[in-house]
C-alpha cells in the first residue's frame, strides 16, 4: 500500500495497513542534501531534492512544499532575515498602521518571485512524488496574514481597538488568501494547510473568534476549491473547536501536543481528519525512546479512529533534530501496526 492508497482508506473511514504519519521536514531536506538554507529557500530544484531525500530517508506519508510563511510577508513588501540554521522571519513589516493597507499593492500569485519560488518548488515535489505520496503546502489563513505585513503588534492593536479597520483589511486579504490556495491546488497540492493563530484560544478571546475570525474563515473557505487542514500554530486549539467545526472546505485539523484528542473528535464528529503528535521543539531535544513512547501513547489514544494521522505539531522540524528521533517516530507507527495484526 502506498501513501495515496492509505489516504484513500482514511478518507473512506477504513483502516489501512498501518497509520499514516507525517512531519513537516521542509528545512530538514536541506540538512539531508547538504544544501545551504539560502539555496534551499531560493532554488525550487534544490528544495525538491531535499524532499526526495526526506522520502528516501524517512518515508513519511505526506511530503511538503516549502514552509516559508515569511515569503508571504515578503510578497507584500515586508523584509525578511535569512539564517543559516532556521527558516527566515519577517524582520521589518511592509507597513505600520491599518490605514496604510489602502495604498498597499497586493502580490500576484503567478508573478511575485517569492510566491513563484514557493509554487514552483511545490510543483516539482508533486511531479516527482505526487503519484504515490500526497504533497501538502503550508500557507497562512487570511486572519494571520496581516501579522506578516504590519507586524503582530499592529494587527492585534487594530483587531482589538479598531474592528471596522480590521474588517476592511479582511475584505482585501480574503480574496488573495483564497486565490493563493487555489493556485496551489492547481499546482497539485493534495491539501492546503492554513495556520489559524488568530482563531486559537492562545491568541484571541471567544468574542473575537465568534464575531471576527470565524466569519472571515467561512467567507474565505467558501471560495477555496480543495481540502484545507487548519493548523493550531502555537497553542492548543481544542477549546475553540466547537466554534470551528462545520467550516466549508475544511478536511481536518492539526492539533497541539497537549490537545485532548478524544474531546476534539467529539466536537468535530467522525468525518474530520485529526493530525497530532509530538511538537517539533520537543522532538529536537528528546531521547528517541521518549519520542517513541509519546507517539505510542498518541496512537493508543486513537486506536479505533480511522481518520487519525500521527503528525508532529507546532512547525517545521529543526535541522538539528537527531535522525534517530524521526526514525523512532516512524518505528512507533510500524510497531503499532504489527501489534494490531
Amino acid at each position, binding site marked *: 500500500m502506498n501513501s495515496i492508497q492509505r489516504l484513500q482508506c482514511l478518507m473512506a473511514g477504513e483502516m489501512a495497513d498501518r497509520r499514516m504519519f507525517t512531519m513537516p521536514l521542509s528545512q530538514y531536506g536541506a540538512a539531508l542534501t547538504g544544501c545551504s538554507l539560502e539555496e534551499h529557500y531560493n532554488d525550487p530544484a534544490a528544495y525538491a531534492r531535499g524532499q526526495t531525500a526526506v522520502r528516501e530517508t524517512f518515508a513519511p506519508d505526506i511530503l511538503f512544499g516549502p514552509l516559508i510563511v515569511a515569503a508571504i510577508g515578503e510578497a507584500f513588501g515586508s523584509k525578511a*532575515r535569512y539564517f543559516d540554521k532556521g527558516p527566515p522571519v519577517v524582520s521589518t513589516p511592509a507597513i505600520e498602521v491599518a490605514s496604510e493597507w489602502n495604498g498597499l499593492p497586493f502580490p500576484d500569485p503567478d508573478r511575485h518571485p517569492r510566491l513563484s519560488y514557493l509554487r514552483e518548488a511545490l510543483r516539482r515535489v508533486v511531479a516527482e512524488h505526487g503519484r504515490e505520496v500526497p504533497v501538502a503546502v503550508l500557507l497562512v489563513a487570511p486572519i494571520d496574514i496581516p501579522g506578516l505585513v504590519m507586524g503582530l*503588534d499592529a494587527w492585534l492593536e487594530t483587531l482589538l481597538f479598531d474592528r471596522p479597520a480590521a474588517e476592511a483589511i479582511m475584505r482585501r486579504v480574503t480574496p488573495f488568501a483564497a486565490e493563493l490556495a487555489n493556485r496551489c491546488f492547481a499546482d497539485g497540492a493534495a491539501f492546503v494547510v492554513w495556520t489559524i493563530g488568530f482563531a486559537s484560544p492562545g491568541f*484571541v478571546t471567544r468574542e*473575537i473568534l465568534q464575531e471576527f475570525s470565524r466569519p472571515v474563515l467561512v467567507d474565505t473557505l467558501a471560495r477555496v476549491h480543495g481540502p484545507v487542514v487548519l493548523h493550531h500554530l502555537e497553542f492548543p486549539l481544542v477549546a475553540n473547536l466547537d466554534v470551528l467545526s462545520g467550516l466549508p472546505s475544511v478536511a481536518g485539523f492539526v492539533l497541539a501536543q497537549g490537545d485532548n484528542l478524544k474531546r476534539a473528535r467529539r466536537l468535530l464528529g467522525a468525518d474530520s481528519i485529526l493530525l497530532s503528535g509530538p*511538537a517539533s*521543539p520537543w522532538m*529536537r*531535544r528528546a531521547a528517541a525512546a521518549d519520542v517513541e513512547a509519546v507517539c505510542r501513547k498518541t496512537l493508543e489514544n486513537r486506536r479505533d479512529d480511522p481518520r487519525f494521522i500521527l503528525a508532529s505539531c507546532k512547525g517545521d522540524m*529543526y535541522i538539528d533534530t537527531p535522525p534517530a528521533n524521526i526514525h523512532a517516530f516512524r518505528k512507533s507507527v510500524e510497531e503499532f501496526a504489527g501489534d494490531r495484526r
Partner: protein
Amino acid sequence: MTPGEHPDGELSDLNIRRALVAAISRADRERAGQLLDHWAARHGYAAAYKDLLEPALKRIGRGINSERFSLAQAYVAAKVAEDMLTKSAGLLAQNSEPKTVKGPVVLGNAEEDFHALGRRMVATMLRSSGWVVCDLGNDVPAAEFVDKAIEIGARVIGVSAMTMTTALNIKEIRRELDARGLSGRIQLAVGGAVFLVAEGLCDEVGGDGTAPDMLEAPHLFAELWARGERGEDAR
C-alpha cells in the same frame, strides 16, 4: 451590566475588583480604564495599581475559567497597565512627588529574533511596576546586552526568544557573562513561547530564571535583582 457590577450600578471595592478582572478578560480596555479611574478617585492612582490592578493581573495570570490566558487579553492587560502608568506619571509630575524606582534592567530579543510583541508587553509590565527598563529592541548581539548592563548598572538582563533556534543564541550571553566574571552579579532572565513547550530550556541556555507569562515578569525580575545584589550564581 457586566459581571462583578452591582445591580443598582454602585460599585463596591470588591465588585470593582471582580469587574476589572472581567473587563480585561474580555479585552475591554475602555471599561478597565473606567474602573481604575473610579478606584483612583477614591484611593489614588498608586493604590489603584497596587491594590487593584496588580492583584487583578495576578488572578488573570493564574488562568480564567481554567483556559489559557490569550495573547489578546495579555495585550489589553499591558495596555491597561500602560494607561495607568501614564495617568499616575502625570499626577506625580504635577505633585512633584519623588517616585520610587527599581532597576535599571536591560531587555531585548535574542540575536536573530524579531518577535517583538512579547518583549514589548514585558517592558510595559515592568515599567508599570516601577522598573526602569532599557529596551534594546530586536536581534540584539550578546555583547551588546552585557555592555549595556555594565554601562547602566543593571543587575538583570531579560532576553526574549520565540523559537528554539533563537533561544539557543542566549547561550552566547551566558558565555559573555562568564567570560567577564559577571555571572551571579548580573542575572539572566529568559522567556518566550518556546520556553513553554521545551522543558529545561531555561537551564540549557544558561538562564537564571524564567516566567510563564508577562504578568509574572515583575516578580521574576525582583527575585533576580535580589539575587544579583547578593552575587548569587544559582545555576
